[in-house]
């Protein structure tokens, strides 16, 4: 459609909003209530414009012609229109520059400021505030309001993570709409009416995993991140755009650091991955980085005590020890969120040491690279039939949001010259959702099930059976029997409906996580099922770069060299990066026997207790590098300026070791690793765009060396992935205050049977690892099952734990 904005004429698609036409033409109108990816509501009345359009004669169907000009006559609307809620029409004329429009905008700014406290100097939003900017650009510079302003609560803690200043609120309703439209958790609304209305919630806290996003788009300083409260002003922060490494999604984030501390993390935009949203785990889980006990210098054990040293000394120490050892006797263990560049470095080091004992962990039994048509996150958002196996809301929270996006039945918006449309008129407040397209199957009732048309709670450990019977039916090799379906907690109708929906859909997607990946048989079945019904696959790996490290083959040369074996004595020297492997009592025993244990980590832990050399490691926020997310997308990591002493990433470790060995190893620096990767991938990772690069779909699974199947088919304790990184939770004070200690969730009936109450702290041993958890009774857990958050050292698995071994911590202490 042809539209004229002031003097610019442009051609736009029907259904575009007038505000997007204005921005596409390079003009500007102020706005507060419009927000990308959310419904336009026209509440702030800032984006007023003079809008007119030609009209067709009702009888003849011809354009009514202005006799003076001979052009179609433009009929202007009698009032100024809110451009965010006005759809463009053929021949529409939009005027944003006339005095009438400017006066209206100026008036509206004045009204908006009437009850705004103007405490900009103390407001954390100051300097990055939309109201400040708009008042400066469009306001008259002074107010004629001479009365007392509205007084309301200045610091209302909506939760431990978010502070609400009700005086500053300008009632744009973004936060209220966000909760209903994006995560679908209706936790906020306006209370009271008129000038007295304020944002609030009936219950305490904000029961949602995506609350932090409201602090990003609040146009004023009403909703603020409590973790960064008063930590600095916006212009003082160093903004570093990077990727989050808390899960396999790799959301774009902006790390705001000041004087060597990470003060806050904000969501950045990646239209292919996370839109504008990140989860609370990723946003607030950064406080550990600045903990006082952070390791900042290399330590060498001398006379049984770890003493501060330098990298050169440590490298020489290691080199001396390694020289005494033969080839193949050194093991290298990387954490699965190490970057590709670190992977290259580790491989180069392994090659130098002539050892095949190289692995990354956590790694599950099956490959995280699906064999079949791989789905992207945008495929998920545009899908018309989704089967979810597992608890995606915890494993990869953003996948949960993208699924909910698909439920709206609106495709992701097409980008305009100015980016994502500001007002997508297809989105409406309280849209009806097509719940029927979503089926969620999980061993317990998970959060996403609230939004699913069909839910299935199967007994833990029956993934293989469930998928096999679906596959059988899909291939027409046999009906699903009543009995089998019953056993799976379902009915033949439900499973047949699911198959029909998947095979009848245009763009079906199957999403599976740790519970399927933990059993290779289940993983094979899901891939076969996808092939049978023509679905795309999205596998959620255990960590941020599981996909990349597997594709790069940071893997042992033989099955007897896997992590478990290395920790059971296959290596005489070990270099462990980022994992507290000594948590496992049995492994600790083997570690004590080692000739050399080098630990590369950011914090002291059980493994550093045993280490001969401790090397300070960079955290995910300080590294430069590349990771590959669950859809196979290369995403860039940029280092934030954090005071980390002499911390180095694994590339740095390899550099120092190589130097003492007298050689220049590949991967001694990010640049050197990238040179190598460029040759291999035909991709220059240093020129990676912000949105990343989606690798060609036919990446092959490299995991020919399987781990021991960690997923036994029977058990009563399920280790579940979680949004929160439990290994760092104690150092993330704010997150800890909201989510508490790791919880052992069990059905109230079981809890009664074991005489366990909510809040009881229990200690127990699980596969050699001492765990402590708080009892939480939950109806979501089926009888006979217990849920415990997984750890990097103890990934998702189904285990046996005698309920009688759950000893209350107080009792355990007495016994000890």
């Amino acid at each position, binding site marked *: 459609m042809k539209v004229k904005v002031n003097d610019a004429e442009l051609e736009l698609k029907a259904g575009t909003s007038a505000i997007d036409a204005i921005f596409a033409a390079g003009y500007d109108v102020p706005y507060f209530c419009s927000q990308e990816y959310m419904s336009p509501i026209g509440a702030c009345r800032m984006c007023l414009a003079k809008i007119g359009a030609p009209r067709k004669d009702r009888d003849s169907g011809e354009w009514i012609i202005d006799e003076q000009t001979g052009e179609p006559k433009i009929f202007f609307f009698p009032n100024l229109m809110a451009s965010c809620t006005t759809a463009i029409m053929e021949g529409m004329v939009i005027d944003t520059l006339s005095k009438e429009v400017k006066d209206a905008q100026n008036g509206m700014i004045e009204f908006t400021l009437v009850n705004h406290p103007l*405490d900009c100097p*103390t407001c954390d939003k100051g300097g990055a505030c939309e109201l400040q900017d708009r008042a400066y650009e469009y306001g008259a510079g002074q107010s004629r309001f001479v009365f007392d302003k509205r007084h309301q609560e200045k610091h209302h803690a909506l939760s431990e993570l978010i502070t609400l200043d009700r005086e500053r609120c300008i009632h744009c309703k973004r936060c209220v709409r966000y909760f209903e439209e994006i995560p679908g958790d209706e936790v906020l609304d306006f209370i009271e009416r008129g000038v007295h209305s304020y944002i609030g919630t009936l219950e305490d806290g904000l029961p949602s995993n995506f609350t932090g996003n409201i602090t990003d788009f609040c146009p004023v300083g009403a909703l603020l991140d409590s973790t960064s409260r008063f930590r600095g002003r916006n212009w*003082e922060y160093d903004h570093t755009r990077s990727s989050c490494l808390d899960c396999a999604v790799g959301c774009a984030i902006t790390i705001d650091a000041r004087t060597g501390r990470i003060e806050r993390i904000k969501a950045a935009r990646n239209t292919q991955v996370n839109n504008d949203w990140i989860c609370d785990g990723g946003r607030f889980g950064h406080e550990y980085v600045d903990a006082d006990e952070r390791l900042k210098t290399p330590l060498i054990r001398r006379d049984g005590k770890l003493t501060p040293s330098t990298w050169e000394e440590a490298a020489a120490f290691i080199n001396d020890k390694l020289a005494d050892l033969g080839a193949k006797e050194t093991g290298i263990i990387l954490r699965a969120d190490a970057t590709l560049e670190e992977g290259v470095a580790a491989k180069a080091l392994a090659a130098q040491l002539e050892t095949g004992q190289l692995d990354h962990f956590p790694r599950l039994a099956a490959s995280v690279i699906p064999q079949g048509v791989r789905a992207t996150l945008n495929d998920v958002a545009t899908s018309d039939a989704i089967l979810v196996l597992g608890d995606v809301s915890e494993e990869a929270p953003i996948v949960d949001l993208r699924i909910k996006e698909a439920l709206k039945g609106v495709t992701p918006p097409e980008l305009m010259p100015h980016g994502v449309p500001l007002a997508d008129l297809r989105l409406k407040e309280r849209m009806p959702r097509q719940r029927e397209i979503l089926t969620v199957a999980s061993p317990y009732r998970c959060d996403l099930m609230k939004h699913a048309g069909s839910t299935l709670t199967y007994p833990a450990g029956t993934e293989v059976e469930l998928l096999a019977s679906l596959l059988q039916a899909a291939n027409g090799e046999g009906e699903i029997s009543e009995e089998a379906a019953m056993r799976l907690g379902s009915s033949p109708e439900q499973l047949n409906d699911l198959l029909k929906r998947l095979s009848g859909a245009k763009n079906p997607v199957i999403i599976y996580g740790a519970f399927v990946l933990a059993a290779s048989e289940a993983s094979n079945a899901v891939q076969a099922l996808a092939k049978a019904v023509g679905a795309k696959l999205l596998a959620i790996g255990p960590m941020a770069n599981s996909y990349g490290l597997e594709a790069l083959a940071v893997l042992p040369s033989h099955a007897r060299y896997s992590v478990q074996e290395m920790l059971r004595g296959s290596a005489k020297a070990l270099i462990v990066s980022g994992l507290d492997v000594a948590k496992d009592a049995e492994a600790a025993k083997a570690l004590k026997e080692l000739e050399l244990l080098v630990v590369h980590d950011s914090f002291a832990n059980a493994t550093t207790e045993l280490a001969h050399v401790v090397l300070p490691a960079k955290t995910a926020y300080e590294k430069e590098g590349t990771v590959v997310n669950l859809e196979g997308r290369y995403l860039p990591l940029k280092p934030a300026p954090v005071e980390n002493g002499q911390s180095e990433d694994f590339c740095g470790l390899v550099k120092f070791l190589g130097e003492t060995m007298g050689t220049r190893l590949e991967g001694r620096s990010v640049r050197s690793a990238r040179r190598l990767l460029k040759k291999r991938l035909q991709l220059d990772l240093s020129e990676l765009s912000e949105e990343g690069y989606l690798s060609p779909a036919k990446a092959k699974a490299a995991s020919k060396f399987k781990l021991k199947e960690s997923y036994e088919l029977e058990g009563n304790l399920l280790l579940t992935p979680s949004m929160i990184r439990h290994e760092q939770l104690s150092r993330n004070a704010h997150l800890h205050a909201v989510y508490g200690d790791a919880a052992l969730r069990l059905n109230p009936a079981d809890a009664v049977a074991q005489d366990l109450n909510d809040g009881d702290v229990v200690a127990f041993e699980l596969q050699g690892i001492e765990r402590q958890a708080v009892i939480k009774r939950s109806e979501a857990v089926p009888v006979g099952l217990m849920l415990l958050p997984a750890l990097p050292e103890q990934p998702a698995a189904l285990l046996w734990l005698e309920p009688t071994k759950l000893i209350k911590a107080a009792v355990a202490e007495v016994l000890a």
Partner: protein
Amino acid sequence: MSVLDIAKGMGVTLGHLFKKPVTVRYPDEPVDIKPRFRGRHHLLRHPSGLEKCIGCSLCAAACPAYAIYVEAAENDPNDPTSPGERYAKIYEINMLRCIFCGMCEEACPTGAIVLGHEFELADFRYPDFVYGKEDMLVGTKGSKWQRREAQAKNEDVKLGFKAGPRPELEGVDY
């Protein structure tokens, strides 16, 4: 040059012999300073005793020499440091970097920071030139060195100037 010219010149000299001298015998005598002279900064307090500074960092933003560092924190509502929610936990000015331009004073929304008259800031070590809150809050007299000296001699800080009153310097007593 004639004798007359010499006599004229000597006459000027002679004339000055009987005039009041312009030079000041600093440091034995205090110098006279104009009221708007810009010397060492003062952090002022409200009459209630609360600090005027709210830790907004605008002075740091305005500072052309990047001499100011502010770190804010939240007031304890029961024992506030400043009115409102926010106060400056750390407030530092590096006097070596400071060019005494007065931009910080102009930027301050609460009139908390005012450049006073003290100019005797010479010291011996770099760290001593970083003035913290305790060095600048109203009631602190003299530079770090002067205070050290006074403490050692167990006498009052002796300032080497006198100046007319300046209303902005509320509560500052020289």
